Each structure stands twice: as C-alpha cells, then as structure tokens.
C-alpha cells in the first residue's frame, strides 16, 4: 500500500497532517500524540514580528463548530528560529511552516530567513486568515496578487510551497489556478469560514473583532465542495481541510480529489484523532483494494 504523497520535490510519509494553528509548534502535544504517525505538522503561523494576538474572548463554540479570532498570535521570526526550530530537529515527522504577513516583504522575509534550515520541510503560505486587519485574506481573494506573491516566494526556495486558500471568495478555483500559475506545488483548502455569534443579552458580538473563523464538523461539506471544485481546475495536489473528525470524513476528501488532508479542530477534541484517521484510511484502502492514494481519484465526482 502506497501512502506517501508527493508535494513538489519531496514526499510526505502519509496523507494525514495536523493543521496550522491547532497544533502549536508541536511540542505542546508531544506527551499526548505519537508524532511519528503524522504525515506532517503544519506549524502555527509565523510573521516577521511577534504578535500578541487579538483581544479576548477569542473563541466560542457553535453548533458542531468552533468560531475563533486568535489573530495570528505568534513568537515572531527571531524566537521561532532560536526556540522552535531546535524542537523540530527532534520531531520524527516533516514540519511545514505556515507563513503569514501584512505585505509581500513580510512573506518573503520569513521564507528567505528560514530556507537554509533543514528542519523546515516546506512552506504553507497563509493567504486566508480571516482574523487580521492587514494582509492574508485581502491578498488571498485576489488572483493576480496570489499569482504574483507565489512567484516571488517560488524564486526564494526550492522546498515544497503550498498556498492555503480561503473559502471566503466567490470562485475558489480561480485563486487555486493563480497559485498554480505562480509556481505553487500544492494548495490546501480550506481555511476557516467567516462567521459571527451575537450575545443576545449584551446585544453585541461575542468576539471583540465582531467576526471570527469557523471550523469544525459544521464546515465539512463546504470543504469537500471546495476541494472538488479546485481539483477540477488545477493539476497540482490539493490538501483537504475542514471538519475532519474521523477517517470517513478524510476518505470523503480523498474521493473529492484531495491528495492529503489536515486535521484541525478534531485534535482539540481527541488528540488521537490524526492517528485514528490514518488507521481508518488504511483499513478502507485494504477493504476497497486501493493500492495508492491516487486510486481514490478515479472516483472524483
């Protein structure tokens, strides 16, 4: 059974990774999760400067979902290099660094400075965070911008370059095409959906920023549809994210055209979820006599 996934010039050991922002820098979950079973850790987003994150409260549970407004809280590039990269050295799985910023220079600086480190397997370019005022989502909804930035980053590194797409656009396939045209090795979709919860007693939004990003089981059908649309538009691999709780959800993504998946909110609920999902994918492949992950794609709707 072939479980590896080629992204650019490298191969992930298996298709099940843990999504950026839900797994910290990896060490937070080390006592609970066998990291050697992970296809990849997608790190907490890194920006050149440290960010304290958004005002509180930052999260609220919704029906079968989680609305968050963390605001890319992170230690910044310098401390990332001095404190977090040494952790990655001992991890038995690939670490893909999620990169964010408020302009082109920010994204380029992070990739440029990290590229010499072998601990960095590749990059996931966050053009889709809905919770910051500058950059990210504003860039990620403009195909011309996505293509331009992807090309600049492509010139800085030969490592796998994944563009993380937002579902908060009219036509996600056009953004994916732009990423492919700019030289991306893969796209991951989807980031969170913009959502709002209003406290009817205070008559005001629960999150100080007003809106947040919705994740969890509630968004799974949106993610599946996005992967399906994107896969029909591009030739590079698609990494499916959004509401995967168990193996069946991940299999849906693979059948929709994903080459790999990421587990996010489900890890909060059960840290063993990524390992269970991989076991379930293997069992399904055995039962359905699928030799490799590519075999799922014969069933793309």
């Amino acid at each position, binding site marked *: 059974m072939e479980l590896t996934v080629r992204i650019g010039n490298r191969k992930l050991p298996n298709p099940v990774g843990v999504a950026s922002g839900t797994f910290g820098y990896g060490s937070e979950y080390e006592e609970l999760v066998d990291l050697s079973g992970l296809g990849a850790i997608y790190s907490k987003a890194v920006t050149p400067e440290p960010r304290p994150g958004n005002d509180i409260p930052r999260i609220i549970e919704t029906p079968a979902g989680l609305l968050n407004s963390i605001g890319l809280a992170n230690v910044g590039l310098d401390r990332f290099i001095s404190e977090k990269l040494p952790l990655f050295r001992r991890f038995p799985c690939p670490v893909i660094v999620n990169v964010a910023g408020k302009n082109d220079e920010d994204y380029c600086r992070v990739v440029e400075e990290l590229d010499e480190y072998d601990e960095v397997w590749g990059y996931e370019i966050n053009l889709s965070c809905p919770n910051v005022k500058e950059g990210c989502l504003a860039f990620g909804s403009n195909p011309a911008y996505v293509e331009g930035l992807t090309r600049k980053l492509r010139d800085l590194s030969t490592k796998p370059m994944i563009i993380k797409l937002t579902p908060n656009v009219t036509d996600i396939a056009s953004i994916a095409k732009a990423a492919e045209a700019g030289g991306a090795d893969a796209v991951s979709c989807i980031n969170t959906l913009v959502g709002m919860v209003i406290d009817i007693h205070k008559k005001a939004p629960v999150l100080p920023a007003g809106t947040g990003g919705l994740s969890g*089981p509630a968004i799974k059908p949106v993610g599946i549809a996005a992967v399906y649309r994107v896969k029909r538009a591009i030739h590079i691999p698609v990494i499916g994210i959004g509401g995967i709780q168990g193996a069946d959800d991940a299999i849906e993504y693979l059948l929709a055209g994903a080459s790999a998946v990421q587990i996010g909110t489900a890890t909060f609920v059960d840290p063993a979820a990524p390992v269970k999902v991989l076991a379930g994918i293997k069992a399904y492949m055995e039962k359905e006599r699928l030799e490799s992950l590519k075999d799922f794609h014969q069933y793309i709707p």
Partner: protein
Amino acid sequence: MVQQKVHLRHNREIARDYFELEFSCHFTETNIPLPGQFLTVKIGEGPAPLLRRPFAFAGYENGSARMIYQRRGPGTDMLAGMREGDGLDIIAPLGNAWPEPEKNEHPVLVAGGIGMGPILYFARSLKEKYRDFTLIIGARTGEYLPDSSAIENLAALFATDDGSIGIHGTVVDALPSQYPAPPRFYACGPNPMMWAIHRKALELDAPCSVSMEQTMACGVGACMGCVIRLTGHERYARVCADGPIFDSRDIQWN
C-alpha cells in the same frame, strides 16, 4: 499529561445544580494531579458539545479522583446524567498548582460557586500537612452551598447573599479582621469575587493567588484561545498552560 479512559465511581448532587463526580484513574508518581490542576473531559460522542470541557480537580487519592461541576448547559446536563461504571475520556493533569504557603504565612482560602472544587482539594492537602488555615465559601443562598460530605471536617465559614446560611453578605464580609500570622490569599470563583479578594490582599500587602477561567479549546497550550489579559510586558497569558493559577497582581482585572 495523559489521555485515558476512566470509569465513574459516583456522580451526585452536593448542592443545588452542583455535582461531585468521582472516577477511578491511574497516574504515575510524576503525574499525580495536584490541588489547582485541572482535567479536560470529552462529553458524549459529538459533534455537540464539540470541545472538551475543563474542570479543576477537587481531590485525588489512591487511584480515585474527584471534580465538582455546575449543571449549566447541554454539556454538563449530559455529565449529570452519567452513572456509576460509565466511561469518560479525560486528559490530565493539566496546568499549574496552587503555590505552597510559606511557613510563617496563614493561608486564607476563598471559594465561590464552582471554585469550591480546587479550593476544597487544597484545603484538604493543607490539613494533611497539619497546616492551620481559614476557609470561606460563598454562594447566593444556602442551597448552593456544598453539603457536609463534600466539606468533610474542614471547618469552613459560609457567606450567603441572603443570609440563609452563615454570614449575610459576601466572602469579603466573612474575612476575619485579624489573622494569627501574615495572611496569604487563595481564591477561586467568579471574577468579581476574585477581584475583591485581590483588592483586600493589596490593602493588607499580602500575596494572593487566583485560579482563572476562560473558554478553552485545546487545553494544552497549543491554540492560544484561552488567554486572559495581564498587566506586564506580556499582554496575554494562556489559562491552560501558563495558569490556571496566577498571581493576582499579574491580572488585568478591568
């Protein structure tokens, strides 16, 4: 911290809407849950409620742990319906513990509502060490105060808003006017209560530790969701991994 499946030994109402849940569990010597630390519990099979719920330990001895929770929503309704022998998925122990009082200090433990769990556990641990302490528990009315089986022989003082049991007033009104030694405060309860104890501690120039609460997602320090505001250079701290116990002087109260 470890994730394990535990089994309920009992789950009983100890005050109106407050339940004590006891379960058998196994922790290694280096992983024993200390007073102040907490666990997260997966309630039901999902997807609603979705996230694990955090609860402070209300006791631990000989492979048996306790927590006290308030029934106040769909998740805790489901918990209240669980019976002896039922299984529960927990992750524990999480967070930090109450700091030990110095030898020359008189610990003053103050609990309001759901804060009684970690305060009672701490009080019992002090008693086991033959430490003298003052224990005050506040509630709206007497029916919300824990019964004698939860209090055991801890000599608690009570304060109720309606005066139905104990002192008629708040936990601050129940504080003694004098202490046998310099006091050191420990508080867990609603924020306004902890803030009031913090101000009292400032007045007396006494140290004060508080156990903070915030909506949590991961519970292990990864998601940055459960932060609270601090006064110092670092603007935010994670309740799950940097707390839940904080020096009250580090908290931005308003």
